[in-house]
């Protein structure tokens, strides 16, 4: 399974903070975005940062592994 986390304004749009996506060999980040985007259209328009296993990634073709943790995040506003 892939663990998907949402924070702040993104969590509000998806109306959950966490979901599980079934892992399939060869799966990419793009596949997960497409899967969730179908259920929550517009949820990704405010996503500015994506992390896989707590490392920021820019390449949506990043290949995922079973038990990976993905986070979708809006622009940060701490401090």
């Amino acid at each position, binding site marked *: 399974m892939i663990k998907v986390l949402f*924070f*702040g304004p993104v969590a*509000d749009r998806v109306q959950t903070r966490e979901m599980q996506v079934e892992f399939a060999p060869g799966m990419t980040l793009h596949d997960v975005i497409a899967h969730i985007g179908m259920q929550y259209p517009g949820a990704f328009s405010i996503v500015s940062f994506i992390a896989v296993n707590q490392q920021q990634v820019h390449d949506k073709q990043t290949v995922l592994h079973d038990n990976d943790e993905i*986070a979708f995040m809006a*622009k*940060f506003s*701490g*401090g």
Partner: protein
Amino acid sequence: MSEPVRIQEADFSQDEEIAALKVSSKSIGGIATFLGCARDFSEGRDVSEISFEAYGSMALAEMQKLRSEAIDRFGLLDARIVHRVTTVRAGDNIVFIAAAAEHRAAAFDGCRWMIDELKQRVPIWKKEITPQGESWVTPHP
């Protein structure tokens, strides 16, 4: 002795953070600090509370990296970063940053750099709670 980089609900003591820095080295000639606190207004609206949310593990790792980078980049002798993640009211403390160096220029520069980088790089979000409702804050430069 508390960790030099922390995310916590509880308030912090600037005196305790500075005391922790001072015992780390007798070569410190200056400590620059930044204290971020909650305002009671934002963009023309009253703000009654500010609620923080963080991707805790990533935020802490990024803050630790930020501290190490600041020490290397500005030749600091030590540095501390504490960010609260909770709901605060006007006047409450939010974030504390301190940079200790042999001379003031490095301390000022290192402190400024850390708070600027924190705002850009650390996954923390704030939501303002106003009499008219709640809204996530859009980052400011």
